[in-house]
């Protein structure tokens, strides 16, 4: 089969799978199933969005939780003032603006500096929100009373996942996608091929971060109470990173291949070993980076492909 046919076959397959998942709540009554799948979908969108930017450019971002938390807080502040669609719209706009500011000021950094900055950014925003709540509103923590059911959250996340995958699919076939691959390979060469590297990186960072913000907004009604430590949890950034790496950042569906098993693993770990969760999470990190540095999808492709031109990729960190 030609690659073009293969891609469209994949497109149909993915669309069908999404439709089946969308229909599941009509047939499965179990609330546990819905809750668990929401978790999978949430990380599915986050990891797919993360990979949109970090996969091709190899800029490792730990700011996932910053955007996620901003989305959730937007809902907490505005949910009683505006209709739901408008709240989501505002959250999206805030995500875009914040990503633009962060992108324009940090994407000139490279390698480890960028990683540390994004991690610091998430902490900074958490501290700022805390400071604001303590000093201005004088209450830390907010309640969200919205008439949104688990199933509605499920479908909203599914729509976001479909949009994220479709966006990724479009980008891969566009000049922007090629530009990002060249940037990931060699940024200096990219500039000497006529690529406006800053613009390409900022565009992708904005797209990726907007999805993360929207996930935070959609998830917010699930908790009735939120405070900065809940929604700006740095563990989320690390989990998204490790899920994407396990799945593989070279393929659009790679992150999902990491999200599905790891959500199950983390679910078991946090239920059975709540006190040792961080240690076990760290161990999972190490094992994954050592054993499948390029992700399971890449490893699988390599194993299936006849071995010609053996090539070693360096780990993206």
């Amino acid at each position, binding site marked *: 089969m030609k690659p073009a046919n293969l891609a469209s076959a994949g497109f149909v397959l993915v669309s069908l799978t999404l439709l089946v998942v969308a229909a599941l709540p009509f047939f499965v009554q179990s609330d546990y199933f819905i809750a668990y799948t929401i978790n999978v979908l949430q990380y599915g969108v986050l990891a797919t969005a993360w990979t949109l930017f970090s996969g091709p450019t190899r800029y490792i971002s730990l700011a996932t939780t910053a955007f996620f938390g901003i989305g959730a807080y937007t809902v907490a502040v505005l949910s009683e003032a505006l209709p739901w669609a408008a709240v989501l719209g505002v959250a999206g706009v805030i995500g875009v603006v914040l990503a633009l500011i962060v992108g324009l000021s940090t994407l000139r950094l490279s390698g480890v500096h960028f990683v540390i900055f994004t991690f610091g950014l998430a902490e900074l925003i958490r501290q700022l929100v805390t400071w604001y709540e303590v000093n201005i509103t004088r209450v830390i923590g907010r309640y969200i009373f919205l008439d949104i059911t688990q199933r509605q959250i499920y479908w909203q996340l599914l729509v976001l996942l479909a949009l994220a995958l479709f966006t990724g699919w479009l980008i891969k076939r566009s000049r922007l996608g*090629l530009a990002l691959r060249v940037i990931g*390979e060699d940024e200096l060469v990219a500039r000497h*091929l006529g690529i406006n590297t800053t613009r390409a990186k900022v565009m992708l960072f904005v797209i990726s971060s907007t999805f993360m913000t929207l996930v935070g907004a959609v998830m917010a009604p699930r908790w009735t109470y939120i405070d900065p430590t809940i929604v700006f949890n740095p563990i989320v950034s690390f989990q998204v990173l490790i899920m994407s790496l396990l799945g593989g950042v070279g393929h659009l569906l790679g992150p999902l291949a990491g999200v599905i098993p790891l959500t199950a693993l983390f679910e078991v770990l946090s239920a059975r070993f709540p006190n040792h969760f961080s240690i076990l999470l760290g161990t999972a990190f190490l094992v994954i980076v050592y054993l499948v540095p390029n992700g399971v999808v890449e490893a699988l492709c390599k194993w299936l492909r006849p071995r010609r031109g053996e090539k070693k990729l360096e780990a993206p960190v």
Partner: protein
Amino acid sequence: MTLLKVQNLRKSFGGLRAVDGLSFQVAQGEVMGLLGPNGSGKTTAMNLISGALRADSGSVLLGADQLVGLPSYKITRLGVARTFQLVRVLGGMTCSENVQAGMAFRRDHSFGQAAQKEALQLLELVGLRHLADTPAGDMTYIDQKRLELARALALKPRLLLLDEWLAGLNPTELQVGIELIRSLRASGLTIILVEHVMDAVRALCDRCVVMLAGAKLAEGPTEQVLSQQDVISAYLGVPYA
């Protein structure tokens, strides 16, 4: 007609004046050699023209466009393409993709099916047609150099900067390389050649500029410049002059 006009170009790194008031001109269709001992500022001059480094002062005019102060992607789109002294291919991408990357962002960009066809023609030109689907990182050094040239040509440049592109080739490959550059000149391309291989300089360059310690030491027709006393002593030391 003058295509490139460099005037009083300066660049310092701390206390080191790498390029110190360099001026020269390159005519349309000319192949100019930029010579000088190691450390004389040739590569820095190339980096200033291509925008990889920002000049402290001076001017670089390509036709009517001022290049100093522009980011390199804009300079590239104005028609300056280059190769790198230490070869830089996009290792994770195939030969054909490397060349297509050069086509997708130039002024009259081409992308997709049309680009694929054009990429194969360019690979044919540099003798890499049979490796079109090979990852660039798997190729030999020589083939990577050829690929880099094909990628630079994919930009459809008005001015091509070759930074020691012929270095490290064996005598047979050198002849092929010289023929290739000669054919580019015949097609009307303007080229600046930074080179230590004197056979190639003699065979290809109409005119040469010799640099020493960041400044211009000599300029003129190739044979004349290469037999000049101060040029010989700059390269080999005073006793040989």
